[in-house]
């Protein structure tokens, strides 16, 4: 397995709050890696650092032989990294179609874009039904599917997902989880998944990192972690 992403000793702070205090994570091609951890542990910050939304203050980020830190978000997207941000962030006054097309913004081959569009619509048939509707009027679950679809429109090699289950009804969370599995399986896309629903995250990932206040507390094989007592206590709970 070849290494795809190497996130090394990264430090990052906001105005005056330290969010990442020397975090290292790795991700191999084709893998699904989960990031779990308490509120404010820095999970979203890792994703922001990877996509260049936030500058890092120390450390390095390598992706397929390129160094990402210092690049602009636009450049990083062009390298094949797509992100579904926290809180969905749809373009509320654009149609579903235009939202999806925005996902393919960096691509130029029209016919190829059309093919991707069709495959996305096939994967999320609900979007096909709402094709011309303004995205802001979609329900929460539909919006979540749409932004995942939008990210897929970039034909990414690495997909970053920030809490896709947030505020979504259980049944839809299941649909989304299945979609993630399918995307990784069918298209060979690597996935970095931030989730609060740790049980779900560990079930559908190969490896996982558990974060606590700005650093990695535990990492390893998802199956092993699922059985780990510390994880059980902190993230899974015995009593479901």
């Amino acid at each position, binding site marked *: 397995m070849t290494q795809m992403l190497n996130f090394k000793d990264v430090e990052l702070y906001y105005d005056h709050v330290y969010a990442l205090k020397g975090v290292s994570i790795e991700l191999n091609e084709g893998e699904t890696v989960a990031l779990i951890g308490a509120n404010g542990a820095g999970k979203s910050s890792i994703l922001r650092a990877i*996509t260049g*939304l936030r500058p890092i203050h120390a450390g390095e980020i390598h992706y397929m032989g390129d160094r990402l830190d210092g690049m*602009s*978000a*636009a450049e990083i*997207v*062009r390298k094949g990294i*797509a*992100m579904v*941000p926290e809180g969905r*962030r*749809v*373009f*509320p*006054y*654009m149609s579903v179609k*235009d939202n999806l*097309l*925005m*996902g393919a*913004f*960096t691509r130029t081959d029209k016919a190829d874009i059309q093919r991707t569009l069709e495959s996305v619509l096939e994967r999320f048939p609900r979007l096909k039904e709402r094709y011309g509707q303004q995205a802001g009027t979609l329900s929460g679950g539909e919006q979540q599917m749409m932004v995942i679809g*939008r990210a897929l429109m*970039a034909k990414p090699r690495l997909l970053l997902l920030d809490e896709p289950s947030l505020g979504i009804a259980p049944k839809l969370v299941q649909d989304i989880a299945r979609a993630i599995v399918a995307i990784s399986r069918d298209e060979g896309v690597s996935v970095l998944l931030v989730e609060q629903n740790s049980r779900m995250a560990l079930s559908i990932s190969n490896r996982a990192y558990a974060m606590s206040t700005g650093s990695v507390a535990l990492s390893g094989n998802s199956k092993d972690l699922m059985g780990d007592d510390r994880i059980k206590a902190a993230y899974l709970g015995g009593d479901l």
Partner: protein
Amino acid sequence: MEQIIANGLYLGAQYALIALGLTLIFSLMNVLNFAHGQMYVLGGFVTYTIVAQFGLPFIVGLFASAIVLAVVGALIEKFLFAPVIRKSKREESTMLLAAGIAFFLDAVILLVFGEKQRGVPKIVNGVLNWDFRIIMPYDRILIGVLAIAMIAGFILFMQYTKAGRAMRALAQDRMAAELMGVDVKRYSMIGFALGAMLAGLVGGLLVTITGINLGMGGPTSIKAFMMIMIGGAGVISGAIAGGFILGMMESIGLTVLAAYGDITYLVIFASLMVFLAIRPQGLMGKPWG
């Protein structure tokens, strides 16, 4: 009656074009560009200089206005608005910057082009007189048609091109747009340049009819504010609607209220305030106004 509508349409077309630029800039950067009127005046003076001073054809002057203003707009965005927006805590602060730029352009225009009213010769002669029901000089008709064509062109650009889509996305969610690979800095600059260019184009168009003078900047900005307020700030269709509505209101108001003279504008303004009190987001405004 026909005359009133014709006047309203002509006014509306030019107003809508002014409001479009303002609303574009507002939607992209959340900046209320107080200097919009001054940009319009600058556009007028550029066309004047090219046509009246250098004796070149009108169309050259119009293009020159567009280009000069696009460049000015781009520079202003890159070196002034972008850094200030990045650094300031409250986005309203850009209003001071915009006002400073308005003063600055006023000063430059005064020093470069002087204090006098300027105009260029009519580009088309003759007056359409339809049985005294509609009297409309041909040059006005031409300018009105050109303005409408530009509005249509602008809408098509925003709706169907990649750059247009990128700008719309940018206006709705900056961060998400960035994640789609949109170079937000570049497109903000392009958007601002486009907005400024529209202002310059109107200036260039109207210099053939109303002429231009340095005093027109401030009032033009205020009128443009009113239009985007009627239609809904940051919404393209709203700006167009607002422009035409204000045009019609003026045309009708001036005729109907002529007998009461001094209060025409008082009535227009007051009804605007009442309208907004009832419909706080304007006609087509989005909640984020």
